[in-house]
């Protein structure tokens, strides 16, 4: 292939598709390269789709996008070995107007998104792995090399949307290797059940879904969270922990998942379901402090490759789509003004990203990763203390309530000390405020 393109997009996930779609709609000649058999066949997510980020790209996406269930109810569970203590928010308000969040199945969703990219005029080639970035003598990125014969392709700019492992940028020296403390490993399974059973078990109607986010002893002392999402005719259950935790913890990820599925509060929700896929994926959770350089001469970086994940709110694909769109809009404007795709002009992409919710949210939570790494007790001691406190108050045994309160207070003091508990609360407040 000896053609020349205005832009090459590496990867067909949410960031790459958002970029390729926007660039093609803007009239640029676009080549998108995907290593999977089809777009989506290498991609893994929980998965929740946040409508807003996609609406800004494809306003009428609801007409034909493969969506599972709009979210009606959000549950948060803190679990110890035998219990969970939780909060639930459910509102009929969610049903007013077009839904804000849906569960999706990424393989199907990404294939749909890619069909829109192709309709917009981009050339999408699958089953092709980009092996390196082509540079000119001055170091400017001028194209990509693929694993096809005669696989060099040139373009004015390369959009790196190659996902969390981001090896192209690493090999080009744009950033270093991911550190175990900056990345989480999540494993998940898709479990099939009839829609009727899902609706009865989760107390929802035909076109309504539930999200359960979990933390506590399900991660067996490691820093991480679990989740359970309702799809139309399946459940997605998963658990993710920092790679540094897995490295120290010695518990295989699939063991962690299986133990979680057998938790007495979770097992009944999964009963008689049929597992049809087991997946694993890394999530860049280092946050604001670990975001690398996002642009250079002839290249920009978007989505997971750029570490754009808000781990506190479990948001990633919306940051990915937004960064892809902002990068593409910047490129379109530079092109229309005949500016070269150099770092001094592409810095406009970073400026726009800084001005958006993407960097604002990452900045707000910049201290959360360090705070959690320093406080593993948040994942073990506190869930147990909370469970015991609830049990003390709910178990009616002739002891007066004031004595029960004193007992609860004593247990907190023994486990963490007054200063320890106050410090945990203060540091978490500081990190999350």
């Amino acid at each position: 292939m000896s053609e020349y393109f205005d832009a090459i997009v590496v990867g067909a996930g949410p960031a790459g598709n958002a970029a390729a779609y926007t660039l093609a709609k803007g009239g640029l000649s676009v080549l998108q390269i995907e290593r999977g058999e089809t777009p989506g066949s290498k991609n893994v997510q929980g998965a929740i789709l946040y409508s807003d980020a996609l609406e800004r790209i494809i306003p009428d996406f609801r007409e034909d996008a493969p969506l599972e269930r709009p979210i009606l109810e959000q549950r948060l569970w803190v679990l110890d070995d035998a219990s969970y203590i939780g909060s639930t928010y459910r509102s009929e308000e969610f049903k007013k107007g077009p839904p804000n969040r849906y569960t999706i199945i990424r393989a199907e969703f990404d294939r749909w998104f890619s069909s829109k990219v192709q309709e917009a005029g981009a050339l999408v080639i699958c089953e092709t792995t980009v092996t390196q970035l082509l540079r000119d003598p001055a170091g400017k990125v001028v194209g990509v090399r693929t694993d096809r014969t005669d696989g060099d392709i040139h373009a004015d700019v390369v959009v790196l949307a190659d996902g969390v492992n981001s090896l192209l940028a690493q090999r080009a020296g744009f950033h270093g290797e991911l550190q175990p403390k900056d990345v989480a490993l999540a494993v998940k399974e898709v479990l099939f059940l009839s829609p009727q059973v899902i609706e009865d078990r989760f107390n929802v109607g035909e076109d309504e879904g539930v999200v359960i986010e979990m933390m506590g002893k399900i991660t067996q002392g490691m820093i991480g969270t679990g989740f359970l999402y309702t799809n139309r005719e399946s459940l997605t259950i998963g658990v993710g922990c920092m790679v540094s935790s897995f490295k120290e913890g010695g518990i295989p990820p699939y063991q962690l998942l299986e133990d979680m599925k057998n938790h007495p509060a979770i097992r009944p929700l999964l009963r008689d379901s049929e597992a049809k896929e087991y997946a694993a994926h890394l999530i860049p959770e280092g946050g604001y402090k670990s975001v690398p350089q996002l642009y250079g001469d002839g290249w920009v970086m978007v989505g997971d490759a750029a570490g754009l994940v808000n781990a506190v709110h479990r948001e990633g694909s919306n940051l990915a789509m937004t960064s892809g769109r902002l990068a593409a809009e910047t490129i379109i404007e530079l092109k229309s003004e005949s500016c070269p795709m150099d770092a001094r002009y592409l810095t406009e992409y970073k400026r726009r990203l800084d001005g958006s919710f993407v960097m604002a949210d990452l900045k707000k939570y910049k201290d959360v990763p360090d705070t959690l790494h320093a406080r593993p007790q948040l994942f073990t001691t506190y869930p147990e203390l909370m469970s015991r406190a609830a049990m003390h108050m709910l178990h009616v045994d002739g002891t007066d309530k004031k004595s029960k309160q004193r007992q609860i207070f004593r247990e907190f003091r023994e486990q963490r000390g007054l200063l320890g508990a106050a410090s945990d609360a203060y540091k978490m407040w500081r990190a999350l405020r």
Partner: protein
Amino acid sequence: MTTTQVKIEEKLFQNRYRVDEGRPHVSLRKAEVCRDECTDKVCTHCCPAGCYTLDADGGVTLTTDGCLECGTCRIICSDHQNVEWWYPRGGYGILFKFG
């Protein structure tokens, strides 16, 4: 937390793969580094597909057929950097049905 018996092979059996016979996309750079220099061999319990197994002589055997292409092994081997990791050739490897 009660520990449940789990066989990773049964989980991987659900998945779709197109294995690139004879061309593994992940390899160990020097077998002797795993056997002689690495003491904790965390790859043998961190890999979500159980691709790394401990040998009787203390070495590590890597079988990539069930690889989920997550990248964990490369990142946890930060002390020895003994994992050579690249994507499979286009179209090969794990083919997620749901993802």
